[in-house]
């Protein structure tokens, strides 16, 4: 059985767990714990402390694993472990929270430094009225024009599937180079 791994990363509350939950064929193995600070509690009740784990069985001898990183900085020791051997990664950004853009950029650069794998940026929560458009996000995050920045609503399976597909296309494009 061959396994392939992709990592879903991004700031706290950017929608990583939801992203994996929308597409995984198994109930996501989540390591969520109640958040400890008041501010974080207002955003969401629980947060991922080690990783989220989802699975898509491709066929009899190939499985795609999706790993979600913990969003809080105090658990960033897990990032490097999760990044090991990844095929590619997705950086989730909450498009409606500009206060998290700088953190998203930092996380993106950290993962780029871990490994030279293809990646895409998912502009999540595009259904939110305050969401920044992908074009504005590209400028705000200073994303190169050749990096895919995609609209995303992590609650919607089709949207998640499209983001994963775009990452896979980016991987095949890199193979062609």
């Amino acid at each position: 059985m061959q396994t392939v791994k992709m990592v879903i990363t991004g700031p706290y509350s950017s929608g990583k767990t939801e992203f994996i939950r929308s597409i995984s064929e198994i109930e996501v193995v989540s390591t969520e714990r109640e958040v400890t600070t008041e501010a974080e509690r207002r955003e969401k009740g629980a947060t991922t402390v080690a990783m989220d784990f989802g699975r898509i069985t491709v066929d009899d001898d190939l499985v795609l694993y999706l790993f979600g990183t913990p969003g809080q900085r105090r658990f960033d020791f897990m990032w490097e472990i999760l990044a090991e051997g990844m095929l590619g990664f997705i950086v989730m950004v909450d498009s409606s929270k500009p206060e998290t853009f700088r953190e998203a950029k930092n996380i993106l650069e950290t993962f780029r430094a871990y490994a030279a794998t293809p990646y895409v940026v998912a502009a999540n929560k595009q259904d939110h009225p305050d969401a920044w458009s992908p074009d504005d996000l590209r400028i705000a995050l200073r994303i190169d024009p050749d990096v895919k920045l995609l609209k995303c609503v992590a609650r919607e399976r089709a949207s998640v599937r499209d983001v994963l597909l775009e990452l896979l296309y980016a991987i095949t494009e890199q193979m062609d180079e």
Partner: protein
Amino acid sequence: MPIQGNLRDFSTTQLLNLINLSGRTGVLRLYEGVSTGERDANNNEKIAPGRERAQILFKSGKLVYAMVAGQLNDLIAVLKQGGKLSETQSKLLRERAKGTGDKALAMRLIGANYVSRNDIVACVQQYVLDIVYNAMAWNREPFRFEENVDIDRADRIMVPIDLQNVIVEGARRLKELDEITKHIDNLDLCLKFPENPKEKYAGVHLSVDEWNVVKYVNPKNTIRQIARAINMSDTEIRRIVYGLEHAGLVEIVRPVAPKPAPMPVQSADRSARLQPQRPQRQVVNRIIEKLRSLG
């Protein structure tokens, strides 16, 4: 889709860059930041928009106008600030030209040879730039950029200004301000005259603002107190004290700077361990096929 946030997270410089690159038309409103007492996702103080502080207008990615809330921003105010009208002239003109729009007034002033067209353009540009450069130093104000706003509606004289130059000059000013702030980091220090003030001040020409500061120089007055007394912002007084100190006209006592924190030790190169998998194209294609089949 409006763009909104806080300058703490996305600075005025970054906003100008975004508007420039995307060639947008619209209005950027900056508000006073009001603390809510709550914390945001980054555990920073949550700030809600309060009263409007300023509006900056853009057309096709160019800066065209700016105004500060609660201040007169008509042509008379612009020309007065640009030194083309005195206080008395501007009062008189305001009475006589009541109800006249800026464009009509400009035509009348040019026709009467009070000012030239170039004077008006230069004054409007400077007025707008002063507001924008000032706003570039703000760092906690909520903002909202709205498109599809009819910016031509009001009778304003709008002069398109290339944003790229504004960003470069604004960044230079911010850097300069940063250096001044580092140099005069403590406004609770006092100013005193040098040992031989007569000699130092001989033949020196000071501006009105500099005189205002100099007349309060006394080891009993802190820089902050002087600023309050003459209604000057922290930034303005820093700039003036910096100039006076560099010219040897005043002396300030600075606290001993704390030792810089040791540089964090960089972790060893981890990339070797984290080399990506090198999957076969066929494997990737199989995953693509699988995902495509998912509804």
